[in-house]
């Protein structure tokens, strides 16, 4: 049986007019790296703040382990937060910032010194203990915020877009670094981000959120290969969505009348209006895939590792990525194909949601 560190049960959060989180239920498995992924305003921060104890749910219950924590103040919850703005105490040194939580728990002086130094070492800030937060770079402040939370060995660490303020190179570094630290310490991490690449890089489990609800939960490959909604398909990477209707157990008829095959089971539960989804890198030019589309190249972009074409077909425009420098040019007529196993299906009623 898996251990659950955090459990949300039908949690709703209402702010005056806005429903920030809408009847959300979730089990967070112990020791895993979770990412809450979704566009700005979808309720990620609010969910995190309810787990941390800074907001109370309007309805529903939150458990940490098997204890209900709804109604408890933050200082009675075994979670720690890395705030988006870092929220380092400007009047305290780096050492005292990191020691803050230990001091509140009355950890003895000698022990405390060792634990803080060890934590500063883990985040790569050995010897910075005497500085003030203001004397550090953004990346270093970020590490202090991390150390300050981690040193308390919380059951769950909550991170609210902690890498948002860093430049791209540093962000990439920190993504791997965070992953390493999570691995090393073995706590459960819940990492909020609106960057799908970041979520894919770091997380064991991604919770895709949209408009206060969980759109889909799964590991990165699962979400990428088998998105269940149009929203997930287009939020994680690029997808071609071809509208049609279910025409058989493994068959979808497109608006042009042409039929596409999909793998067994993909259509389970779907009826009526659906879209067949296919990732651009799964479409081949020419080739012998079971599903074929004819079209004309309207755009070509060479981006180093791949060449990206936009092909106009009679079921709409299709993006195609091929490795390296492609030899085809705009205006060229060609045949596209893809395997039924590469395709996924999403319901169109969901796609229609504004």
């Amino acid at each position, binding site marked *: 049986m898996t251990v659950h560190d955090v459990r949300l049960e039908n949690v709703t959060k209402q702010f005056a007019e806005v429903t920030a989180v809408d009847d959300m239920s979730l089990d967070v498995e112990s020791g895993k790296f979770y990412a809450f992924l979704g566009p700005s305003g979808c309720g990620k921060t609010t969910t995190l703040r309810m787990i941390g104890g800074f907001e109370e749910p309007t309805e529903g219950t939150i458990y940490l382990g098997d204890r209900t924590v709804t109604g408890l103040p933050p200082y009675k919850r075994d979670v720690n937060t890395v705030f988006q703005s870092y929220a380092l105490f*400007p009047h305290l040194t780096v050492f005292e910032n990191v020691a803050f939580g230990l001091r*509140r728990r009355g950890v003895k002086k000698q022990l405390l010194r060792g634990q803080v130094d060890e934590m500063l070492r883990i985040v790569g800030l050995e010897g910075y203990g005497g500085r*003030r937060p203001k004397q550090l770079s953004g990346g270093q402040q970020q590490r202090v915020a991390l150390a300050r939370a981690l040193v308390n060995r919380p059951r769950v660490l909550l991170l609210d877009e902690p890498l948002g303020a860093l430049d791209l190179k540093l962000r990439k570094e920190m993504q791997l670094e965070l992953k390493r630290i999570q691995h090393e310490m073995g706590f459960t991490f819940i990492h909020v981000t609106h960057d799908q690449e970041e979520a894919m890089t770091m997380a064991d489990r991604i919770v895709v959120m949209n408009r206060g609800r969980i759109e889909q939960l799964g590991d990165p490959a699962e979400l990428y290969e088998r998105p269940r909604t149009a929203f997930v398909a287009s939020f994680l990477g690029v997808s071609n969505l071809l509208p049609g209707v279910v025409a058989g157990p493994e068959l979808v008829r497109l608006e042009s009348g042409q039929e596409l095959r999909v793998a067994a089971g993909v259509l389970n539960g779907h009826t009526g209006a659906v879209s067949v989804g296919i990732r651009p890198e799964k479409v081949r030019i020419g080739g012998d895939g079971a599903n074929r589309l004819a079209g004309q190249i309207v755009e070509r972009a060479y981006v180093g590792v791949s060449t990206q074409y936009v092909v106009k077909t009679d079921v709409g425009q299709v993006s195609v990525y091929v490795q390296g420098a492609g030899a085809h040019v705009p205006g060229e007529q060609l045949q596209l194909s893809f395997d039924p196993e590469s395709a996924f299906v999403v319901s169109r009623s969901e796609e229609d949601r504004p």
Partner: protein
Amino acid sequence: MRWVRRHVLTAYAVLALAYLFLPIAVVVAFSFNNPKGRFNFTWSGFTWKNWENPFAFPGIGPALRVSIELALLSSLIATVLGTLIALALVRYRFRGSATTNMLIFIPMTTPEVVMGASLLTLFVNWRIAQGFGTILIAHILFNISYVVVTVRARLVGFDRHLEEAAMDLGANEWVTFLRVTLPLIMPGILAAGLLAFALSIDDFVITYFNAGATTTFPLFVWGAARVATPPQINVIGTAIFVVAVTGMLANILFQNYRARKGAVLA
């Protein structure tokens, strides 16, 4: 042409500063005067005598003492009360908080004569004998407004995430206030306290209405001026000025030091 433009500005600044500081310079200079008669209005020779015997004029010492006691007490009480009001106003939306936010300005904008007279009316009606107590109440009253405004300015820019972070790390509300909120708004509180002290020690109008038989330093100077202006008044005036300026500079230097230190701490 550019020379003129640049130097006109400098000359203007010098004149403006001279305008501001000339009266103070006169006060300081005349504290070293050796006046011929009872009035210290014409220069008649340098002496240390006044500084050696600052309390030589009868009544001046006790009056100064009353002023200092009043200033200390009223600024302390007003700072505590004003800080609490500022916290309540910035942190909580309660019934009447918007109104209070505006009302707090009224004591600052009411003419002192009006405020002094109405307080006197109040005290007389309530049969409260005028004296140290009534002056103290009056000073606390007008000081609170200044404290609230000063501390509120500091609180408005306060990052609430800092308090959330403290609670996240296990500090309850009280510890959070002591360890995070208070140290961070302390510069504002200190500035407010200094301002209140300065406002109290030199208040004349409101004090005059409500003093009864009690004599503060400004009241003493006013009373004495009709029969004499001993140079000791200038001595004490200069001393108060120096203390006030030193306090202000110390506060500024302390803030700068707090902001900069850390690089040297292990």
